[in-house]
């Protein structure tokens, strides 16, 4: 015991009563409310009935009685009148005292501090979650970037390999082209694919000691598929492996090619071709044409441009019609003369404004180059690039010049 003097204990009691609005309830062992007192009105506890069950009137007692632990404290209990109370429960000889001390001031102060602390904590938790999400997004992005880089490297390797294979194929295609010749007459050519591999092909060879074949063909489309067919046709012509055809007769050659290379069996590819056979001792040139641009013959001295003659043909492209037949044309070449075979990519040149080069301009360029003692083939290529405005042309550029 503190053994406080009566003056002090009286003062303390007065202090508690004035500051804490003391109220009390007494509940007996049968949980009946037997007594009440103090400032119950402060807590909104009015209309309580003695000798009635306590729990029905005081909800917070539900389940707590009889007390398992004494004293038992419920801090800051919200009371019906809106005040907060520290509720002390004390056991005494089977009964329970319930003492209410007003804690509203403490409750409000605690609530303000707690509110700030919780607001700050919630804010920092939200911030932490955002940072975690950002870090996860960054990690995902880094991973995606790495995967992208790996894919790009793989793609580059594939691209490099395909480029190498294309270059090998291009080298092969060029290797089977005949070398320029100067005797007993001159033959020269230019071959510039629009992509790595062209659908154009050209060639010439002696069929026998008296007959010289020359041809230029253009497979529909560009690229690998067209190139494969153009190489196959060239090899067929060069090896003379044609069925039922006299290689000296152009109309039979084209007819046989048409039988062999029907487009249904060639991935829907067809080709145009100009095929001629020159007989030097007589100067006779026999030729046939399958949908191909006409050859141009310049007769007479090149210094005076000569007289240009178109050597046309009227056949359909090879592979389009199973029963197509081809006419044989014939003319005589008298020295000096120049014969040009070419694909449509040589003169169908688009300008940057969308307009096209006129065929007459192309013909004029051939004639002008010769009179200026320039190589016609290089000059025509230079003109085509200048007209197009780009060194890469839209179509394959192939031309043969035979000079007698």
């Amino acid at each position, binding site marked *: 015991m503190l053994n406080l003097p009566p003056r002090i204990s009286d003062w303390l009691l007065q202090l508690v009563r004035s500051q804490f609005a003391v109220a009390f309830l007494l509940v007996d062992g049968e949980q009946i409310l037997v007594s009440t007192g103090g400032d119950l009105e402060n807590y909104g506890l009015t209309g309580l009935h003695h000798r009635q069950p306590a729990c029905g009137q005081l*909800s*917070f007692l539900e389940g*707590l009685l009889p007390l398992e632990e004494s004293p038992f404290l419920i801090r800051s*209990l919200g009371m019906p009148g809106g005040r907060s109370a520290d509720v002390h429960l004390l056991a005494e000889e089977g009964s329970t005292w319930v003492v209410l001390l007003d804690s509203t001031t403490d*409750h409000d102060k605690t609530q303000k501090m707690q509110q700030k602390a*919780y607001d700050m904590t919630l804010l920092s938790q939200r911030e932490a979650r955002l940072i975690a999400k950002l870090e996860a997004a960054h990690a995902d992005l880094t991973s995606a970037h790495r995967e992208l880089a790996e894919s790009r490297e793989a793609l580059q390797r594939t691209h490099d390999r395909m480029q190498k294979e294309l270059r090998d194929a291009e080298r092969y295609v060029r290797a089977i082209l005949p070398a320029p010749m100067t005797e007993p007459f001159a033959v020269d050519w230019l071959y510039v694919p629009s992509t790595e591999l062209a659908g154009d092909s050209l060639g010439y060879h002696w069929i026998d000691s008296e007959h010289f074949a020359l041809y230029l063909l253009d497979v529909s489309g560009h690229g690998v598929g067209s190139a494969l067919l153009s190489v196959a046709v060239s090899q067929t012509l060069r090896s003379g492996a044609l069925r039922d055809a006299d290689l000296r007769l152009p109309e039979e050659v084209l007819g046989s090619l048409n039988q062999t290379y029907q487009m249904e069996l060639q991935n829907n590819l067809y080709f145009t071709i100009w095929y001629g056979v020159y007989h030097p001792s007589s100067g006779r040139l026999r030729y046939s044409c399958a949908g191909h641009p006409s050859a141009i013959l310049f007769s007479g001295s090149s210094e005076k441009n000569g007289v240009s003659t178109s050597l046309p043909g009227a056949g359909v492209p090879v592979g389009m019609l199973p029963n197509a037949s081809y006419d044989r044309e014939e003319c005589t070449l008298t020295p000096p003369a120049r014969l040009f075979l070419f694909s449509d990519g040589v003169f169908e040149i688009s300008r940057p404004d969308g307009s096209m080069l006129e065929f007459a301009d192309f013909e004029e360029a051939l004639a002008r180059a010769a009179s200026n003692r320039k190589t016609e083939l290089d000059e025509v290529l230079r003109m085509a690039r200048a007209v197009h405005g780009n060194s890469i042309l839209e179509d394959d550029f192939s031309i043969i010049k035979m000079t007698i």
Partner: protein
Amino acid sequence: MLQKKVCVLGSFGVGKTSLVRRYVESIFSDAYLTTVGVKIDKKTLTVGAETVTIILWDIAGEDEITPIRTSYLRGAAGYFLVVDGTRAETLEVARSIHTRVALEIGPIPFVLLLNKADMQESWDISDQPASALENGAAAILRTSAKTGEGVEEAFQKLAQRIVP
């Protein structure tokens, strides 16, 4: 009339008071007002042929400094364990409370509420919380004090378990 004490427990800021207000008064406020101490509410409902008054103890949320007082659960017939679905850390707090209640009070029925279901875009927890909670819970429900989703159902589920 039958009276049953039910406590509402969980970390701070998970929406315990909002759930009680939604259930008892059909009111919701977006403003967050922290609970100090204990608030008591009542609601009468029917379970089968039985009418029961639920005495709800809305107990201040647990934080790092102040754990909930499990002695407040004395005499409780069951409790709600409330988790904020947008804050995964509140699930850990719920697990911890559940363990302490089971140890100190015993295995009384509870319903796990994954609250704030209206904030789906910020959802931060799995639909399948830890098996320790799953196995003991009378039910696991997504709730929203804001929209009322799952609230009525949650109280019915717990009431069905605590009314004999």
